[in-house]
């Protein structure tokens, strides 16, 4: 990695932290920066000065901080898995939501709720979140594998086949989810709606702890795949000739990406387009080198989702806009722009 890309990574990190701070301060209970600093230094034992209201501390530690951290984790998960999936499919349009990963996760999560699986009902607290995440991960894994199998031919993804396979899988899983919705009772309906719209409203220390391993493993694991992903841009056999164990790399990437997306969907519902636009913006503006795109997608994804969540919970205060609606509103135009620019690029050739 060149000095320039290291510098940009640092800048993105600073941006992310700045957004985290801003998001921690703004809301129904306002916290000013000095108060935030005092709160943190008091609770970490750095200072015994208490320059803040107890109510502010309660809001910050119980509501806002877990929510900001959940946003960071989910944004990072969506960004990094989007970047890895695009590299793996050798296509800039591949996105967890578009190719059926998220809907597979949703279906399995909804199944757990509506069918009231016995084991699941007995679980309480954090364990239910863990199981939900694992089940969503399995669902995501199944749909990803199916779409991947359909879309790959001779080591290349056929883009139309990929998108159509994603469309078909989405339609199928949505049909099943719809069927489960039909069976659901009122309380269950609320949960299902939550999945389809996407929201960080369920944030708590429990959800954060449950999500942590599912996001941390890919965040540290996927950057190790960067070199292989670069080589895969040449084609699968070319990568193999360069000494890359393509089969193994594919498996690791699919497992890690679906792990991150599956758990994110289980805890925050479907949040579209973060995984699509973040890597794309980075590739367009800096470099396509995955050694940059992979970690940078995690950081920028975290920053963007935390920022979007800040808007989602303040724009219609005291009510809250589901964040999935917001990212779709911002993301769809960008998506269209990518399609049009790809079209123009191909027309030139």
């Amino acid at each position: 990695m060149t000095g320039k890309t290291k510098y940009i990574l640092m800048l993105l990190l600073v941006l992310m932290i700045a957004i985290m701070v801003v998001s921690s301060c703004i809301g129904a209970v306002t916290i000013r920066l000095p108060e935030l600093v005092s709160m943190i230094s008091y609770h970490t034992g750095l200072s015994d000065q208490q320059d803040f209201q107890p109510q502010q501390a309660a809001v910050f530690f119980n509501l806002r901080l877990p929510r900001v951290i959940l946003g960071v984790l989910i944004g990072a998960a969506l960004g990094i898995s989007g970047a890895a999936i695009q590299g793996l499919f050798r296509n800039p349009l591949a996105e967890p939501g578009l190719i059926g990963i998220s809907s597979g996760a949703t279906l399995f999560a909804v199944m757990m709720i509506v069918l009231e699986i016995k084991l699941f009902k007995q679980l309480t607290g954090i364990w239910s979140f863990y199981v939900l995440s694992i089940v969503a991960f399995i669902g995501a894994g199944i749909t990803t594998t199916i779409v991947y199998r359909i879309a790959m031919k001779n080591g290349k993804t056929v883009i139309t086949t990929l998108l159509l396979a994603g469309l078909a899988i989405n339609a199928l899983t949505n049909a099943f989810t719809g069927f489960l919705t039909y069976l659901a009772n009122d309380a269950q309906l609320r949960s299902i709606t939550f999945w389809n719209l996407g929201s960080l409203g369920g944030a708590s220390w429990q959800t954060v702890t449950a999500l942590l391993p599912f996001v941390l493993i890919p965040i540290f694991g996927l950057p190790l795949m960067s070199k292989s992903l670069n080589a895969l841009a040449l084609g699968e056999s070319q990568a193999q000739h360069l000494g890359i164990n393509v089969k193994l790399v594919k498996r690791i990437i699919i497992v890690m990406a679906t792990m991150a997306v599956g758990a994110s969907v289980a805890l925050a519902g479907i949040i579209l387009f973060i995984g699509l636009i973040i890597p794309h913006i980075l590739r367009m503006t800096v470099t396509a080198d995955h050694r940059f795109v992979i970690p940078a997608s995690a950081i920028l994804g975290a920053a963007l989702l935390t920022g979007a969540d800040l808007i989602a919970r303040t724009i219609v205060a005291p009510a809250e806009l589901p964040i999935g609606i917001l990212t779709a509103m911002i993301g769809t135009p960008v998506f269209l722009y990518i399609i049009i620019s790809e079209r123009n690029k191909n027309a030139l050739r």
Partner: protein
Amino acid sequence: MIKVRNLTFKAGKRNLVDNLSFDVKKGELLAVLGANGAGKTTLMKLLCRDIKPDQGEVFINDKAITAYSLTDLAKTRAVLQQHNTLSVSFLVEELVMMGRYVHFDQQPGLHDHEVLKQVMIETGITHLAGRDYNTLSGGEQQRVQLARVIAQIYDNPNACLFLDEPTNGLDLQYQQQIMVLARSMADRGYTVICILHDINFASRFADQIIMLKNGKKVADGTPLSVINTGNIELTFNIKVKLMASEDYDCPLVFPAAAASPHMQGM
């Protein structure tokens, strides 16, 4: 050095490569000629270990290729395939550095940068270093890909270089440049196997020529010994004429009168 012994690859009942045996010495360039469907590409895939033969074995430096680990194989042989498209665009220098991937873990070392610089000078692409690969012409792209492949085995003079129709779709100047580079690699001790369409290019640059038909060897030997009207008619189903070349032992080959019965059928 490459040894191929009794290599056979079947697709259904047909033998795409049929009991093929040959040797290529270190420092030599072997050209493989043959009509479309003669089994050249299948042979290349077998040599690269992309597919497993039904029978027979390929040895590189007296070790069966199946006995190599993936990374050792990558350090011992490099492959330039026919079709090279990039799904996302890279700068030329980033692309050439991919050839060094097997030699470093996450970030290239000093030596890798030196090799990169040297290879780019030798292949004449230094001026393209900062260009976006997808904006290059076909000829430039092929030279960059060749540079990537050379970088992979640059510090192992016992390595092999496999080129699958490297001059395809290029204009004469680029064809010449690519073949000169391939030749210079052989002269430096690399074992080079190159699939070619142009018979004259093959006889000009190769030490040894193998002609294939239906997966079988029609001829195998020095250009002078195998380039004759009989072998060429057998291999390509066309009548040709030979013409003595002024500064070279091997005669030039060109198609006989277009009105020959064979040509009409094509």
